[in-house]
């Protein structure tokens, strides 16, 4: 099977270019297996990967124009030649490896940890199954970045707009019955950029490998803000 892969090595003095590889396939082969096969042919090829089962979030790449996790993408579903590029809009370090600093910074900005004002009980803080259900579809985020690096608003304003991943995480804490910093969190999200740069283009939903829905989470935050304003 034919692969056309983005190559860039800052030390080589060469400009970024696409390089072709022919890879022998097997049944059930995933894109990550194909990238590993390329690496076995050509040691200089760099990409991130680890778990191989879609939970660590290391191997997000742009394939035939859309963002995907390589390890859970069957190559049988891909059109030839398979074009593999780094995530769009992020500075490229080398080959498929991009600099995700900004993405992580936005995550940190929402203060993604449970905040409690009351003293903690001796045992667990109780939570009803119904309240716990509200976290489903949120806590599973693996921080792969497929969404944020496919979001036009994040491309234009990566320092000011939080992006779908961070906003999904913000909602994960707002939705947690145990969290006691709702006002503080909402105040932080005020203003024209952090949240309101989202134009509901839904690119993020389309590419999330975990089937999560940042647009919906963003909608919930907006509703909550409205309620608070009233």
């Amino acid at each position, binding site marked *: 099977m034919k692969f056309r892969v983005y190559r860039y*090595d*800052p*030390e*080589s003095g060469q400009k970024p270019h696409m390089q072709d590889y022919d890879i022998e396939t097997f049944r*059930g082969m995933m894109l990550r297996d194909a990238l590993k096969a390329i*690496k*076995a042919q050509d*040691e*200089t090829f*760099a*990409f*991130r*990967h*680890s*778990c*191989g*089962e*879609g*939970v*660590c*979030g*290391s191997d997000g790449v742009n394939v035939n124009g859309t963002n995907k996790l390589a390890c*859970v993408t*069957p190559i049988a579903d891909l059109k030839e030649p398979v074009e593999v590029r780094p995530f769009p809009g992020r500075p490229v*370090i*080398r*080959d498929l*490896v991009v600099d*995700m600093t900004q993405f*992580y910074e936005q995550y*940190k900005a929402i*203060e*993604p*940890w*449970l905040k*409690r004002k009351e003293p*903690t009980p*001796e*045992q*667990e*803080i*109780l*939570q*009803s*199954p119904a*309240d*716990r259900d509200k*976290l489903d579809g949120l*806590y*599973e985020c*693996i*921080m792969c970045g497929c969404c944020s690096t496919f979001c036009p608003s994040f491309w234009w304003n990566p320092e000011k707009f939080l992006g779908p991943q961070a906003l999904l995480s913000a909602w994960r804490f707002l939705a*947690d019955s*145990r969290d006691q910093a709702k006002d503080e969190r909402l105040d932080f999200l005020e203003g024209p950029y952090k949240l309101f740069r989202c134009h509901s283009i839904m690119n993020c939903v389309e590419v999330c490998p975990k089937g999560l829905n940042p647009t919906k989470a963003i909608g919930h935050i907006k509703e909550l803000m409205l309620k608070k304003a009233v």
Partner: protein
Amino acid sequence: MSLNRRNFDALIIGAGGAGLNAAIQLANADLRVAVVSKVFPTRSHTVAAQGGVNAALANVLPDNWHWHMFDTVKGSDYLGDQDAIEFMCREAIPTVYELEHNGVPFSRLDNGKIYQRPFGGQSQNFGGDQAARTCAAADRTGHAILHTLYQQNLRAKTHFFDEFFALDLVRDAEGVVCGALVLEIETGEPLLIEAKCTLLATGGCGQVFRTTSNAHINTGDGMAMALRAGVPLMDMEFYQFHPTGIAGKGMLITEGVRGEGGYLLNGRGERFMERYAPKAKDLASRDVVARSIVTEVKEGRGAGPKGDHVLLKLDHLGESVIAKRLPGIRESARIFAGVDPVVEPIPVFPTAHYVMGGIPTDRFGRVVMPVGSGEEAMPGLYAAGECACASVHGANRLGGNSLLDILVFGRLAGKNIIDYVKDNPFHRDIDPSSLDYAVGRLKRWDQHGKGPSVHETREKLTRCMEDHAGVFRTEEIMAEGLEKMKEIRAEMPDVRLTDHSRVFNTARIEALELENLLDVGMALAASALYRQESRGAHSRPDYPKRDDVNWLKHTLYFLEGDRLDYKPVRTKPLTVESFPPKERVY
């Protein structure tokens, strides 16, 4: 060579559950703590843990830590140290509550308490009815825990060195560890991190085997660093094969599937576990289930066109239970086995999963060295998590006890380091030769010329380990394996990289990992060959019985001269009566 240097009170190598739970304690105590990880912290393999973490909370069925302790001792085939086990089972309870307080989104019971599921090897009342001790966040418990711990470290302002690869420990003239030389992967520049105290929390080494549930990064780096610093590895022959990996692929299907009521079938549609473990059946201990599966396949009762696996049936649980309690499993089975478990069974076969052995520590996480007839804690060096051996798992680990181990001992090591740093407030002078050695490891890969590639050597090594140190081991098979490993070791100096660039050179990282795999693989192969009994995961058809007279002892492997030594098992618990070895039936 002028090196960039940083210094900290404490250096933690590894950002999995063990490293991060230690780091929180230190950062909360306002110590300057550096956490080095070769991947971004939430990409550590703790993220892949599925089923849950054990603690006798008694939320679902009656339970107490003493029963948990009994099960763990029995599960360990009596090779676990009973003081450490008592300690872990008692600490389990506050540890899980602390996790919950920190934000872990555990699944819930109707009364609002943490959901607990049954897992293999768990009993009430010292071997009675099945217990339900495994606290779960659906089947994504590791993910939920790791992300929460990372979040709490962000709050506590831990210094993270993300995508830095630790090369080797550095020491002073007396041999005391005083930090590590690390490599910034993005720039390819080495950096010396000096610390008053160093904690190894680098996780497991499943990548020594070809088929494994472990991630690409689980290459035993910390264990190999310890070996090179003269520390032995303990009980490395005890490697756990998880009964239910996706056949031919190795990805894990959690024991939680059987805990929720799933069961195994052979090619004839028989529930074969009834024959091997009449009482516990599919929830017998992992070593028992893995051997039963391999036996079924060997004796021609496997499933599939090649008869090379068995089937894990769970469709009878119904779609709603599967969607609620096992959503991740359903996803994995669909993607990697091409089956939807709601309608079809999953083809499974044992997969290399977990190393019971590791860097020997006491129950405070301090690395211990044999001295005379006893042992002493090494100043300034700690280990916790899968790379360490406390030893709570002995010859076989129970499901749900590893997350527990990494969290309890990570936390305790953190607390202990606080005191250590108070008592040892100054940095030590690094011995230049120790630094040269570490730098040399890096330089070695700058050599040009022809030679075998890293990739082919790694394949040779992992195949050798799979063929010669698998579920069933005979003298002949293992001796041949050890010879092959020695040949690979002899070839290592000729192995060459063709890529000598600096920036994000993953080929170089894989070369350094290969060296670590080799050291750890040697420890495993050598320790296994000499243990002439069957105990827990170490199963020898030529010595089918456990031999408590000669072998109720821990193995120690030293890199220098491939030397083996042994030390007694600590059979005396802290406060309760000891559990004497009994025959192990499920």
